[in-house]
């Protein structure tokens, strides 16, 4: 059994009128690829965004590598450097070139020199097949390219875990494949990943565990094979019938 990297205990997130997360407990181990699926409004994105405190939980604890990130004493900026995040809308910085997007954080936050940061960035760009785009601006890229760059931007910080918030939902169908390919490649490299997704094929094929959420709770979780072939709860059966 590998080491527990993220331990979520009794996580609650209440917005003014709704409860987005209702006592969520989860453990994510080193090297796991966890796919989180569920209907819209089930709280899966909120869950992911709580993990690096983009949403501030109203209750419960989240331990990341032993330190409680909900404890104000822990420097969240330091912890976030070790948790890469990829957004549905890419959120590349439009006023910077691809290379500047990739090197900003390593240079300012990790004290890398320009040369060091660029070397690392170029190596990762090559890996996703976009080395020739280093001097482009984000607006000059396709959606699939933008998302691959966004993944590389997070990887440049050499994080311990990668959080993906519906990374392919804003893409044209023909571009989904190239992004999933990069994520598959990452999984092979033993990166710990938590992926909120609607890509059932990806969840089945790449994930080591699948979590089904509804109404702010984890209803069912299992290894992909069993999850998709032998769903235990009625609700998951209904959901899978609709989406598969």
């Amino acid at each position, binding site marked *: 059994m590998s080491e527990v990297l993220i331990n979520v205990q009794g996580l609650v997130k209440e917005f003014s009128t709704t409860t987005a997360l209702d006592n969520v407990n989860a453990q994510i181990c080193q090297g796991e690829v966890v796919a989180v699926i569920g209907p819209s409004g089930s709280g899966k994105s909120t869950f992911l965004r709580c993990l*690096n405190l*983009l949403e*501030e*939980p*109203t209750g419960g604890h989240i331990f990341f590598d032993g330190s409680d990130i*909900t404890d*104000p*004493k822990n420097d969240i*900026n*330091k912890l*976030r*450097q070790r*948790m*890469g*995040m990829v*957004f549905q*809308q890419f*959120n*590349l*910085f*439009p*006023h910077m*070139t691809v290379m500047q997007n990739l090197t*900003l*954080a390593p240079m*300012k*936050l990790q004290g890398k020199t320009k040369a060091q940061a660029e070397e690392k960035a170029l190596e990762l760009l090559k890996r996703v097949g976009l080395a020739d785009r280093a001097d482009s*601006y984000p*607006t000059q890229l396709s959606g699939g390219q933008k998302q691959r760059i966004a993944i590389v*931007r*997070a990887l440049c*910080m050499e994080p311990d875990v990668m959080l993906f918030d519906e990374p392919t939902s804003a893409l044209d169908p023909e571009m989904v494949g190239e992004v999933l390919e990069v994520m598959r490649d990452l999984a092979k490299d033993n990166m710990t990943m938590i992926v909120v997704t609607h890509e059932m094929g990806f969840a089945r094929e790449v994930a080591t565990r699948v979590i089904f959420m509804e109404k702010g709770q984890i209803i069912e979780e299992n290894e992909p094979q069993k999850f998709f072939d032998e769903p235990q709860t009625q609700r998951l059966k209904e959901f899978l019938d609709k989406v598969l």
Partner: protein
Amino acid sequence: MFLSQGFREDFYRNFIKDDRYKYLLNGLQVTLKVTFFALIVGLVIGVVIAIIRSSYDKTHTTRYSSPLHCFLQILLSIANFFCNIYLTVIRGTPSTVQLMIIYFVIFGSVNIDKSIVAICAFGINSGAYVAEIVRSGIMSVDNGQFEAGRSLGFGYVPTMWYIILPQAFKNVLPALGNEVIVLLKETSISGYIALEDLTMGANIIRGQTYSAFLPLFAAAGIYLVIVMLLSAGVKKLEKNTRANER
């Protein structure tokens, strides 16, 4: 008409005789100096206030806090409160009255260079407008940009500085250019505190020669040329900063 004998005489009387053109030239210098430094004062005030106000808007609903966080939040609320008062008062009263209050009341008992008073007055005045311009620019940047910066590990201030402000600045460049033009023309009320700016210079000539046409049109023409130059400069800057969008 312009080359007629009468015009040449008028021209000589208004500009050449007794070196009267120097009223315009020196006035122009004062106008440019006051505009330039007031612009800097206005920008500094404006950006600071814009950051305070938009930070307050973004964070005052946050519940989760440490004691330090709490303290900063209270500080921010107080700062925001004073910023609002400043904006209300400055935008709610005429700049002429503000200029006179600063000169005759606040600096009333001090012997101070009038152009410094004018720089203060116009800078403070302009700051209020710049603040709202910059704030609208900050608000126009997608919140995802902010989240992307924070998720990489940048704190609030570095995220603002490296990621939000450059984009905000680009968005508000046309409005800021407009504010510079307004500011330049606004300085023409400097005569109220007997500061000899361009307008005042023209008026002095008018008083000496009893002819209004040439000095006033000369002043108007000079303002116009400067404004046109400024507009061209802003347009060029805009084009440069937008180069990466195509």
